[in-house]
């Protein structure tokens, strides 16, 4: 919180606690998350009733895209964090010597 803004307005420095934005209030974030979870569930429910016209057979399976999207991202993050990062991460001055 100590970083000074580069571009100081004519207005007096803003006290951060006074100017809470929309997403600084936990109840707003919770509300947003609840809307998001509802959408996710709805999208799955829709998949029960609507059979997709697809080129590959598995595209029509229930929840294929949902499961694939979820699993793909979990694998992506896990591999990036636990496999790739230990292999390639170096200090910021790695090339500076």
């Amino acid at each position, binding site marked *: 919180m100590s970083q000074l803004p580069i571009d100081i307005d004519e207005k007096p420095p803003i006290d951060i606690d006074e100017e809470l*934005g929309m997403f*600084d209030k936990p109840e707003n974030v919770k509300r947003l998350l609840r809307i998001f979870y509802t959408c996710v569930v709805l999208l799955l429910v829709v998949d029960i009733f609507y059979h*997709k016209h697809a080129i*590959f057979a598995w595209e029509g399976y229930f929840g294929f895209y*949902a499961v694939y999207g979820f699993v793909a991202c979990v694998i992506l*993050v896990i591999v990036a964090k636990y496999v790739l990062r230990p292999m390639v991460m*170096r200090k910021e001055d790695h090339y500076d010597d």
Partner: protein
Amino acid sequence: MMINALPPALIMILGGLLVPLFKGRARQALLLLLPVISFINLLQIPVGSHWILPFLSDQIVLGRVDKLSLIFGYIFHLIAFLSAIYALHVDDTVQNVAGTVYAGAALGAIFAGDMFTLFVFWELLTISATFLILARRTERALGAGFRYFMVHVAGGLCLLAGIIMHVSQTGSAAFDLIGLGTIASWLIFIGIGVNCAWPVLHPWLTDAYPEATITGTVFLSAFTTKTAIYALARAFPGTEELIFIGATMAAFPIFYAVIENDLRRVLAYSLINQVGFMVVGIGIGTALSINGAIAHAFNDILFKGLLFMTMGAVMYRTGKINATDLGGLYKSMPWTCAFCIVGAASISAFPLFSGFVSKSMVMEAAALGEMRWVWFILLFASAGVFHHAGIKIPFFAFFSHDSGIRCKEAPPHMLLAMGISAALCILIGCFPQYLYSLLPYTIDYQPYTTSHVLAQTQLLFFSALAFTLLLLAGIYPAEIRSINVDADWIYRKGCRQIYRFSRWAFDGINEWANRTFAQQFTSLLAQFFEDPGANLQKHGYRLLVETSGIEGQHEQTIRKISIRSRTASYPVGIGVLLAVLILALTSMLLFLM
């Protein structure tokens, strides 16, 4: 055929070179007008080949105008204009000239009808781009610019070698379908591949783009890779190797993007990921897939430009770009935040945004060609790109934890450029038929089917769900101040090792040669020739004594030799004998020669 227009690249390049003559408002006006005039000029040129000039035994074609080159011409003018608006505050002659000439060079390359013209503009692209990086004037930018230049010069030489071989084999310099086969075609293929950021050849991009100036990166993101995509679409459509190259490009950068801290570098990785889709499309080689590749190039120039603009604006106002330093900016920069979300939605291919109508063309072409693995990889890449570019960029810059930074909203000209780009992203996403009508092949493709919209929405929402749950569970990798080594390690560290090794090896040889020849051998020679006659006798005498084993007062004899030699008191007989011997030797040499 005579037409009332100038070659497509001429206005931007010559105009760019005139920029230093103007100052202040006049220069700003010129920078904005050049793309507009150049675009009007382009509209005057009818379809066909123009400005055909004799060159060596062949001919060069400065303006080959057909549907394929035209669509790139349109989007290049558009992004040149938008970048000019975005960079209106930049009062730096180097950047002003380099940006305009760079756009002109890209135009020259895509309208080139022969390989020599292509090569010249290809190199001009490299030179002008290097200045956009160097203009940042930091030590890192200097290094990155130098590496950028070296890699592209190597790629350019590869291309030139291929062109010369190809021309001498086929007897024609026309730049048309080449296809893989001969060594020449492979050299051209790889030369284009360097600019296209193929895996292992790619690190120039992720190295240099985040080090360039704020506005320079916006220019850079549009032209170099897309010119390479054009060249591939022209010369290597349907080349199977491109499918594998493209699939790798689409997949591997997203892993790097997830753990990268510098948000412009995240975008650089996602640029490679998007170009991967285009390369796959060209590799499949059907009308649908090539249309998809080009439509996606068109859209990518807009949404990737937009994303780089928003990150540039953040950098312009806060002076920071690392995710660890940013956060909570939505309060200070609401408009930039909104435009960034539009760009993020477009690159993630949300329905009603531009990426949706082009990325799926490539995927459908892969499915129709029964390429299961390619299709699975592309689907993985689609989910991944939403993850790192769609969520990560806006989230860490504008939301996440409050960094405490309070700054002004981006300046009006930046907002205008971002606003137009964002509007175009939505416009193309809602009314794709206008974009489709510009594509080289006439096809009937309908992106908005219930199945497609539902499938894509499910994919994206569940990717977002994964992000949310991983973040809440604390598994999502925290941003760390660090760098991640990539294939550029090979030349950034590897070359240093080569340098060290060669220094050790060659310095060793040098040292030894210096010691042996320059010091020891010469001093020996000097000693010997100080008194060659006496030395010869002394050594001969010693040799004789040692081999024959005669006992006697050798020391005395040797001293006698020295004295005789120093006082030159040889008996006359010996002197004459020596003279005769020398005469005999010289005359023998003379006669034998």
